C-alpha cells in the first residue's frame, strides 16, 4: 500500500492517518484507484450477489414465486437425492461429458495440429472453423432441428436412399434424444477449439517438429509425443473451458430441442435447474441442484487441472 510509511522497528503498528503525509511530494499517480469501484460494484451486485443467493435459496422450502417461504436446511438435498429424475439427470450429464469432452478435445487437437502445419487450403479451413463460434445457440439449435425433426433433412436423406424404415423422430425418441444433444456439442465444439489449439501450436518453434522428423518420427508421433507435452497445460485450460460450457450450457440446447424428454431421457443437470425454477416452480429444489452443479463444476475443474498438469 502506498499510504503507509513504515518506520524501522515500528512495523506492527498500523499507520492510521493516511493521506495527510506526503501529498505534495508524491506524483498523483494513485489518484485513480477509486475509478475501479463502479466496475467492481457492478460485478459484485450482478454476478457475485446472485451466485451467493443460489446457496441461500437452496436452503429454503419455496414451492412457487407467490407461495410462503420456510427454512428447509438440508431438507432439499434429501428430496433431490431421492428423486429418480435427478438421478436420470446425473446419468445423462455424466454420459454427455464422458462422450463429448474426449471426442471434442481429441479431434480438435488433431485438427488444430493439421491446420498449424499449413497444408493447402488451410486458410479456408480456418475461416470455416470459426463458424460455430460465431452463431448463436438458437441458430445452432435450428440447424439441428431442421436436420433431425421428423420431416427434416436426415429422414429425407434416408427415404431417398430407400432406407425409409430407418427414419425416426430423432429428437423425440428416448434412445436418440441425448445422442442428438451430444452430437450438437461435438459439432459445435470441435471447430472453435481447434482454432485455439492451432493458434497455440503456431507458437511452438518449428525446430522442435523438424528435429523429431530427423529422428524418424512420423507426424502421428510428433503430434502426440513432441507437441502435446509442450502445450499440455494449454490443453488443460481449453478442456476446463469446454467442460464448463458443456456442463452449464446444455440447458439451452435441451430447452430448444428436446425439453428434457421424452420422460427424462434427455434431462441434464443444468436443464433440471431451469425446469424446476421456471416450469415446475419448485425453487428450493432448483437451486439445490444449482449448488450441486456448482460443486460438480468445481470438482471437475480441479480434476482436469490435475490430469493436465505440466509434467516436465
Amino acid at each position: 500500500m502506498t499510504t503507509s510509511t513504515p518506520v524501522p522497528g515500528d512495523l506492527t503498528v498500523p499507520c492510521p492517518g493516511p493521506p495527510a503525509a506526503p501529498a505534495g511530494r508524491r506524483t498523483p499517480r494513485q489518484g485513480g484507484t477509486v475509478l475501479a469501484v463502479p466496475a467492481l460494484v457492478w460485478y459484485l451486485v450482478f454476478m457475485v450477489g446472485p451466485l451467493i443467493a443460489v446457496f441461500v435459496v437452496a436452503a429454503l422450502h419455496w414451492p412457487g414465486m407467490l407461495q410462503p417461504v420456510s427454512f428447509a436446511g438440508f431438507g432439499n438435498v434429501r428430496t433431490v437425492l431421492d428423486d429418480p429424475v435427478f438421478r436420470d439427470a446425473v446419468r445423462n450429464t455424466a454420459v454427455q461429458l464422458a462422450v463429448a469432452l474426449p471426442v471434442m478435445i481429441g479431434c480438435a487437437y488433431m485438427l488444430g495440429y493439421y491446420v498449424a502445419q499449413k497444408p493447402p487450403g488451410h486458410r479456408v479451413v480456418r475461416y470455416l472453423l470459426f463458424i460455430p463460434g460465431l452463431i448463436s445457440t438458437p441458430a445452432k439449435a435450428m440447424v439441428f432441428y431442421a436436420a433431425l425433426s421428423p420431416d427434416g433433412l436426415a429422414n429425407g436423406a434416408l427415404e431417398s436412399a430407400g432406407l425409409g424404415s430407418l427414419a425416426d423422430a430423432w429428437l423425440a425418441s428416448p434412445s436418440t434424444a441425448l445422442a442428438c444433444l451430444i452430437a450438437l456439442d461435438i459439432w459445435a465444439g470441435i471447430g472453435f477449439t481447434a482454432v485455439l489449439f492451432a493458434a497455440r501450436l503456431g507458437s511452438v518453434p518449428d525446430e522442435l517438429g523438424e528435429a523429431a522428423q530427423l529422428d524418424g518420427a512420423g507426424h502421428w508421433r510428433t503430434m502426440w509425443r513432441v507437441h502435446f507435452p509442450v502445450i499440455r497445460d494449454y490443453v488443460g485450460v481449453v478442456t476446463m473451458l469446454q467442460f464448463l460450457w458443456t456442463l452449464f450450457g446444455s440447458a439451452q440446447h435441451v430447452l430448444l430441442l428436446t425439453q428434457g424428454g421424452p420422460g427424462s431421457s434427455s434431462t441434464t443437470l443444468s436443464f433440471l435447474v431451469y425446469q424446476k425454477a421456471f416450469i415446475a416452480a419448485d425453487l428450493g429444489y432448483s437451486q439445490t441442484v444449482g449448488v450441486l452443479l456448482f460443486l460438480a463444476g468445481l470438482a471437475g475443474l480441479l480434476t482436469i487441472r490435475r490430469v493436465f498438469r505440466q509434467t516436465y
Partner: protein
Amino acid sequence: MKLSKRWLPAHVLVWSYAVLLIVPLYYFLASAFKTNDEIFAHPFALPTSFGFGNFRTAFDSADLGLAVVNSALVTVLALVVTLALALPAAFALARSTGRLASLVEQVFSLGFLIPTFAALFPTFLLAAATGLFHTRTFMVLFLPATAMPLSVVILVQFMRTIPREMEEAARMDGASTYAVLRHVYVPMCVPGIATVLLLNFLTFWNEYLYSLVIIGPDPAQRTVQVALPTLRSITGTDYGVLTAGTILTLVPVWIVYTVLQRRMQQALVSGAVKM
C-alpha cells in the same frame, strides 16, 4: 514440415468436417428462398427464384423487424455501459501498484470461473426486486457485469504496455487524471478496445437464456434470439420461413466477421483463454 501422401486420411477427415460446417449454412441459405414442397423434394438444389417472400413472412409472423431493433438496442447500449465501466477500472488497475489493486484484479480474473448460467434464478429475482423484470433495461445493466472480468483483464494487459513517461509528460502539462485517461490511455489502447467490443458484441447479440427469462416473450420487447425459435410450430414448420429467419439473425455477425476477419479471429482466440 512436408505433409506426405500418408496424410490423405487426415485431409479427407478434415474436409468432411469442413463440409459438415458449411452444408447447414448452404442448406439454410438455399431453403430461405424455397417453399416447403421444394425443400422436401430437392433439399440441396439451388432455389429457382430469389423472392423475399419467406423473409417477409418471417418478419411478419415473428415480428422479427422489431426483434432486430431490440437486439441492436440492447447490444449497443450494453457495449457502451461495458466500456464506461471497464475503461476506468482497467486504467486504475494498470497504473496502480498497491496490494488492494492486485486483489481487485484477482477478484475480476476469478470471474472466469463463474459460469453465467449458474445464477439465472437469483438474477431473475434481482430483476423482479428492482422492478425491471420484463424490461430491456435490466439486460442493458446486467450484460456488462457478465462481460466485466474479460473486458477488464484484456484492457489492463493493453494499458500495462503504455510507458509511464507518457503519463508523466501529460502531467507536466497539467493534465488531470481524467485527461490522462481520455487523451493518453484510450487512444493508445484502441486495439484492446476493439477486441473487447468485438467479443462482447458477439456474446451480447447471441445471448439467449437470460433474454428469454428476463425480457420474456412479449413481441414488443424480445430480442431476435428469443423470437427466432418461435418460428417453429408443432403443426408443421415452414422451413422456408424458419431458415430465412435464422439467416436474418446471422447477417449482422457475418458482416462484422467478414469485414474484420483478422481482428475478429485474433479477438476470439485471445479472449477465450484468460484463466
